[in-house]
């Protein structure tokens, strides 16, 4: 490899690495982006639970436990990602999250409690009530503290 080519390859590699690092740094210090990612995972984990609820899939306590645990973990993660001043721009976070912090925290805690209860469901009879409570907790918080799509 000639010196020029080596220099070129090196600088290209370095650029890519730098761009990547910048992207990671940006995502890392942007709580709005991070909590959005966490919520996307919650939404994905909800799908197998819905499939059971509408009888597209059979009740399976292992599937329920796995997905509800992911939801709980991601909700906890997201809850810690609402620092003061992280609304605005593309974020759908309403100003009420910070003007009514106690109400928001309570709604988030209720969602986490509902996810924990869902993770503990082992019999089919308890499934639908747990589902309604969990989904209802998402709805209650989103109606009050989430803006329409931007």
């Amino acid at each position, binding site marked *: 490899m000639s010196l020029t080519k080596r220099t070129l390859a090196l600088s290209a590699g370095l650029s890519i690495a730098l761009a990547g690092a910048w992207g990671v740094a940006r995502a890392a210090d942007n709580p709005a982006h991070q909590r959005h990612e966490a919520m996307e995972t919650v939404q994905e984990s909800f799908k197998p639970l*819905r499939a059971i609820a*509408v009888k597209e899939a059979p009740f399976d306590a292992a599937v329920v436990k796995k997905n509800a645990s992911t939801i709980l973990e991601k909700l906890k993660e997201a809850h810690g990602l609402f620092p003061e001043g992280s609304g605005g721009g593309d974020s*759908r976070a309403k100003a009420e999250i910070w003007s009514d912090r106690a109400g928001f925290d309570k709604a988030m805690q209720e969602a986490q409690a509902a996810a924990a209860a869902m993770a503990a469901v082992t019999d089919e009879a308890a499934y639908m009530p747990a589902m309604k409570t969990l*989904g*209802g907790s*998402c709805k209650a918080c*989103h109606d009050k503290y989430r803006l*329409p799509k931007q």
Partner: protein
Amino acid sequence: MRLFPRSPRVLAAIAVVLAVAAFVFWWLTRPDPFPASAIPTHQANLENGETLYHAGSCHACHRPPEGASDASLPSGGTPFPTPIGVFYPQNITPDRETGIGGWSEADFVSAMTRGLAPDGRHYFPAFPYVAYRAMRLPDLLDLRAYLMRLKPVRAVHPPHGVPLLGFARRGVGLWKRLALARPPWSAAGGTSASWMRGAYLVNAPGHCGECHNPKNWLMLEDLGRYMQGGPHPAGDGKVPSLVGLQAREKYEDAAQLTLALQNGEELGFEDLSSGGMGLIQSNLAKLPESDVRAISEYLLSLK
């Protein structure tokens, strides 16, 4: 040149012009109530009234503020923010003093289809009478009968937070000249009885177009862009388009949209929360399943 003419003739001319303008304004904005003689004899169907109550999501806007003891009753007063100010929706329980208990059938039909209070004042179009004009008269009377059988709640609300409230209210009469001159929605191109039912529920009592139709500069619905969504009336974010829901892979089929409207985010349909849609969905969930299915069929036919 003097800024203020002092000649008595000029002053008199100005006074005449102002008086004529005031008269024209007063004349153009005069109320035109629904005539009591046009109310037919009617045997009320309370079940139908209840269906229409939920189809119109009446409770969504007329709900009491948080913490009220009778939260399920439509005694009004929850602030309703709009670009021109904050409204406090009316108490529509049958309390004689603060609700609609003293309203005749003609009063109710006037309010619903002509945007007029029993005393002749205009309602602001935050109350969607433009859409309700398309409701059938027997349906309006059933809805009234249903409301009249709710528990009366005494509830007094603050005046609307609109600048120059009295003048603005009278001025709504001018806007109504334009808005009510348009023909009410009427069914066209029905493919099935269920589709027709859905079309009626969506366009007449459901008044979905109030938010999902974009509005032009006169705040009239832009029917050329029917149900294509637009800026959210509360000022932040957007109202989604209801056109091409299937092509855009929002819902697989009418069965799935029915499930979504019946359960909303309780089954993880998160698009049905936020921006006020969560409340609407909670109301629609109380409709008979065949009606929710009809709404879904109609909505998915919008391409």
